[in-house]
Structures are given as C-alpha cells and as structure tokens.
C-alpha cells in the first residue's frame, strides 16, 4: 500500500543538491590540497545554487499541497517561516558560542588593548546605522508588497542591497586595511584573531544575505511577487534582521568595550 501512496504522488527531482554537495567537497578539498581546485569548487556550488534559484523562480518546487493536519502549537505559521526560525536558532547558537569564546579568551588573557584606541568608532557607528537602515528598507519592501505596491518593493529591496553593499565596502575597503596598516592583523594575537574572525563571519553572513536579496530583486523584476505571494521576502527579511541583531552585539563588544 505504501507503493500506491507513491503512485499518486508526483515525483520531483533535481541535480542541484548533488551538485552543491560535490561542489562544497571540491571547494574544501581544493583549499587544502590545490587552491585552483577550490575556485572550481566554488563555481560548482554557485552553479548548484543557481539551479536552486531557477527552480524557485519557476516555482518548480512549490510546496506540496498541504492536507489539513495537526499543526499545534504553530497553527498559523507556514512551514518555510518555521524552518527559517529554526535555522535562525542554530545561527544564534553559532554566533553565541563564538561570542562566549571571545569573552572567554578576553578574560583569560592578561592584557587586552583599549577598544577605542584600536578600532575606529566612527566607522563602526556608521556601519551600525547603515545596517539598521537596511533593515528598515527591507521592512519597507515587505510593507509595500503587502499592499500590492511593486514600486515600493523594488525601492526597498534595491535600498537593502545598496546599504548592505555599503556596509561591506566600508568594512572591507576602509576599516580593515587601516587596521592592517596599524599592525592590528588577524595573526597579531588574540585581540586581532577574535575581531577578524567574528566580524569576518558576520561579513560573510552579510554577503550571503546580499546574494539572497539579489535573488529577491531578480524575482521581483520577473514579476514573481504579488500581494498574496511574497513569503520569500518575509523569510529572507527575517534572516537579514538576524544579521543586523548580531551586529548589535559585535559593535559594542569590539568597538566600545
């Protein structure tokens, strides 16, 4: 009877997961053994992600029609949104562990440089405000599309993208080179190590968020979002705000304390 259960169901297949898995393995293998291989691996991963995005744009993998079932205690939540929240939970644990590690090594160390002498508070504050504004922009996009305003959606998403990119440019283009010139580098000791690894991982999350927002923009220009069909904006927005929240802690921990 289980066979019959399958018969009635449309099978969906894609190479993307296989390609992403193989690409990641190739990327890591290349990093260790032979760096050009890693570039190839990165390209393979990008191809796999592109396949996923294309499928999503075509809505090939639109949710299986959900039957009426038991959903307590989160009756009104779509499963994607719940999935995003569970994912954010794991992200909280990663960044939380790293921050605990930072505090641990900082207290274990005998001396630690005064934050304001090493770090550029002005740039840090500017970046904080930029990130807050980008959060506002993606909220604006969501509010717009809820009332069917596609123009507002485009402005909001493009604004988010621009502000996120500005954050990365300020950090990678101005802040970090200045630190390196001052001799505060990733291998100059625990203060440098913690700063560059934590903010670097955060910057990687911002970059990932930019890719996701780029996908939203692409889909917007294809007319993929309507008043009733815009869950992706909300879900990616949740992630974007999370990245924002992480920075709310990294900024004072590194720049002010």
């Amino acid at each position, binding site marked *: 009877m289980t066979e019959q259960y399958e018969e009635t169901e449309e099978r969906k297949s894609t190479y993307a997961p296989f390609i992403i898995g193989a690409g990641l393995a190739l990327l890591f293998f290349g990093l260790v053994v032979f760096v050009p291989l890693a570039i190839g691996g990165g390209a393979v991963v990008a191809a796999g992600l592109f396949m996923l995005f294309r499928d999503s744009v075509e809505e090939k993998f639109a949710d299986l029609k959900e039957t009426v079932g038991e959903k307590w205690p989160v009756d009104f939540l779509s499963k994607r949104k719940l999935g995003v*929240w569970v994912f954010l939970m794991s992200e909280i644990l990663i960044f939380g562990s790293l921050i*605990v590690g930072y505090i*641990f090594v900082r207290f274990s160390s005998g001396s630690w440089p005064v934050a304001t002498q090493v770090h550029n508070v002005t740039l840090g504050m500017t970046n904080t405000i930029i990130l807050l504004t980008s959060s506002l922009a993606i909220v604006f996009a969501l509010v717009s599309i809820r009332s069917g305003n596609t123009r507002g959606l485009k402005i909001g998403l493009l604004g988010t993208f621009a502000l996120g990119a500005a954050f990365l440019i300020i950090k990678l283009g101005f802040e970090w080179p200045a630190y390196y010139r001052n001799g505060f580098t990733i291998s100059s000791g625990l203060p440098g190590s913690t700063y560059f690894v934590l903010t670097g991982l955060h910057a990687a999350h911002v970059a990932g968020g930019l890719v996701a927002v780029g996908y939203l923009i692409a889909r917007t220009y294809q007319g993929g979002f309507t008043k009733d069909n815009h869950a992706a904006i909300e879900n990616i927005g949740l992630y974007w*705000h*999370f990245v924002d929240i992480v920075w709310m802690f990294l900024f004072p921990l590194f720049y002010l304390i």
Partner: protein
Amino acid sequence: MPTMKFYLGIWAGLVAATVMEVVTRSIPGAFAAISVIILLISSGKAVTIAMYFQHLRYENKSLALLPIAAVIGIIFLAIAAWMSM
C-alpha cells in the same frame, strides 16, 4: 501589520540608542559599569529588532520559544565557561 510610520519610529529609536551607546562610552567612570550599561542597551536594541522588524510580537507566542531556548543554551555555555576560567 503596523504602518511604515511606526517602523520609521522604531528605526529612529534604534539609531538614537546607537548614538547613546557611543556617547555612554565617553563618559568617564568605572569601565565595568559602563560596559554593562552599553550591553544592556544593545540587548534592548536586539530585542526591539526581533519584536518589531522580525515581528515576533505579532506571531504565535510559541515561536518566541525558539530564540529564547537558543539564548538559554548560550547562557548555559557562558556560565560554565566563566566558572571554568
């Protein structure tokens, strides 16, 4: 869902809190006490973002348990790390 005006207000509050943090830093005083104040402001900002931008406030209450559980796990880790120093 609240209006854009409301969100603008939240954003203004967050920016003000950020400026306040930086200003707090320049107040002369006990380093530890000021650090605690700054971290409290940051936590307030984080909660505000979660409540309004991530609209946890308007969601099913059970959903808030997920981030809260994660934060509790981290607090476990932090306390133990602190004590094993």
